[in-house]
């Protein structure tokens, strides 16, 4: 018995000029699962994320969040709806400390308005304190609290990746979109990431795009394989691993 999907991408096609980046792609992410999207370079993985986030408009199809179309939502609405995302370049704010970087993402549950902050209302001040506490909690959880006052530029890459993850997690999302979470990490760090992601499933679904196939096979409950913008396999890891078309797509053997 499976629960209703949290996120549904339905029959979505994206074209850039003459290039079809996504061709009739459908997938469903269920609550409390880790869902991986793999595929060779140029298969359309990041385009898929960009469609979900509203950076790219599909020519056909739509994205549903809990059964409701995201067509009319703007990118910044998604965090409020419970969807946050990390990006490949990490996109950390260079001049802000680790704590401040995480605080940028920490306002989803903020009660007071921008005006309240400008006027220095007491409720707003209390909110700021609560947000800081929550951000510190996430830093603690990801074991990077000791770098709270450091600037990201001075930190090792693995730590910076965790800062980006913390910034997406602090909004308490119900769907976390991770763009290549394992890239650039050492084998040890990848192991830690697998444990960490599995630990998130009691509070959020995870949709990740990744090149590291071994890692995806171990961490994911469900895998969608893209090749040239089409879904060529979709199912649990063992089924996808056994799929001949997947092997072909990765090894490049024709028929």
């Amino acid at each position: 018995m499976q629960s209703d999907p949290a996120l549904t991408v339905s029959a979505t096609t994206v074209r850039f000029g003459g290039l079809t980046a996504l061709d009739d792609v459908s997938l469903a992410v269920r609550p409390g699962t880790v869902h991986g999207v793999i595929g060779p370079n140029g298969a359309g993985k990041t385009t898929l994320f960009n469609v979900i986030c509203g950076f790219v408009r599909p020519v056909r199809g739509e994205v549903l969040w809990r059964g409701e179309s995201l067509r009319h939502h703007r990118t910044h609405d998604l965090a409020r709806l419970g969807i946050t995302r990390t990006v490949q370049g990490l996109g950390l704010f260079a001049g802000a400390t680790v704590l401040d970087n995480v605080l940028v993402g920490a306002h989803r549950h903020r009660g007071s308005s921008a005006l309240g902050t400008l006027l220095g209302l007491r409720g707003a001040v209390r909110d700021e304190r609560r947000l800081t506490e929550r951000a510190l909690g996430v830093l603690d959880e990801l074991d990077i609290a000791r770098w709270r006052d450091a600037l990201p530029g001075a930190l090792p890459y693995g730590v910076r990746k965790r800062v980006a993850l913390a910034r997406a997690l602090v909004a308490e999302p119900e769907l976390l979109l991770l763009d290549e979470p394992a890239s650039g990490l050492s084998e040890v760090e990848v192991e830690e990431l697998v444990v960490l992601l599995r630990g998130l499933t009691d509070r959020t679904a995870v949709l990740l795009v990744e090149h590291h196939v071994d890692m995806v096979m171990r961490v994911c409950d469900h895998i969608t394989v893209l090749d040239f913008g089409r879904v060529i396999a979709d199912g649990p890891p063992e089924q996808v691993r056994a799929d001949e078309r997947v092997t072909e797509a990765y090894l490049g053997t024709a028929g």
Partner: protein
Amino acid sequence: MPDFLTLTLGGLTNGAIYAALGLALVIIYRATRVVNFAQPALALLCAYLAYSVNRATGGYWLGLLVALVAGGVLGALTERVLMRPLRRSGELAPVIATLGLLMLLQAVSGMIWSAEPKSFPYAFDFRGAFSPAAVFVVVVVLVTAGAVLALFGATTLGLRMRAAAFKPEVASLVGVKVGLMLTIGWTLAAVVGALAGVLAAPPFLSPTVLDAVFVYALTAAVLGGLENPVGTIIGGFGLGVVLSYVSGYVGPELVTLASLAILVLVLTFRPHGLFGRGVARRV
């Protein structure tokens, strides 16, 4: 020979105004990478509104309040109506648009209130070396600057504004309303600019009264590296004092020239400002 203390105090008073108008420029530059050349005209319009309210009511404070509110409204409108459609039009288009707005607003002010100088009141008694009016100017600007710094440095709203300016796409992915942050930035800047306009206007208000002040404010902002509020405030006060010495010891006709010379020297030898540290401190 003019009195050193008098020159210094007078310079600090003028410098406060340069600092405030410079701060308005820095807030917008940080948020959008645009030097808002329309800033003096926005401030001018607000000062004229204060003048009209002062004339109608005979008081000072209601006029100041109206000017600040009008500044906020004008700032928000400028961002929504003029700047937002140009966001993806390259770096030059928004700057040219602010120049256009400058000319438009200056002309409109002249049409409504005429080019003839209007007498504009001080907040308090302005007689003496460091008069109550001068103290008022310095204190108001320092308090305003402190509030702006606290907003940017110590609140999550300020943090989101910085994030929206630095990496708009990434900021929107974690839920920052980038458009709203820009509107708030322009609003805030225009309110600070309106304050500077009202403080700079006395004793006489005319359509060109802020032109020279704008050159000094821009110099102050460049001294601070264009995106460093603290540097700009120090730059504003410092420039005020230096120009006051130039005026007193060398000659008042050389003040604008001296300011432009400082601007050129800073841009040549310290393009990131006296306090700037280059690209690394962009947030």
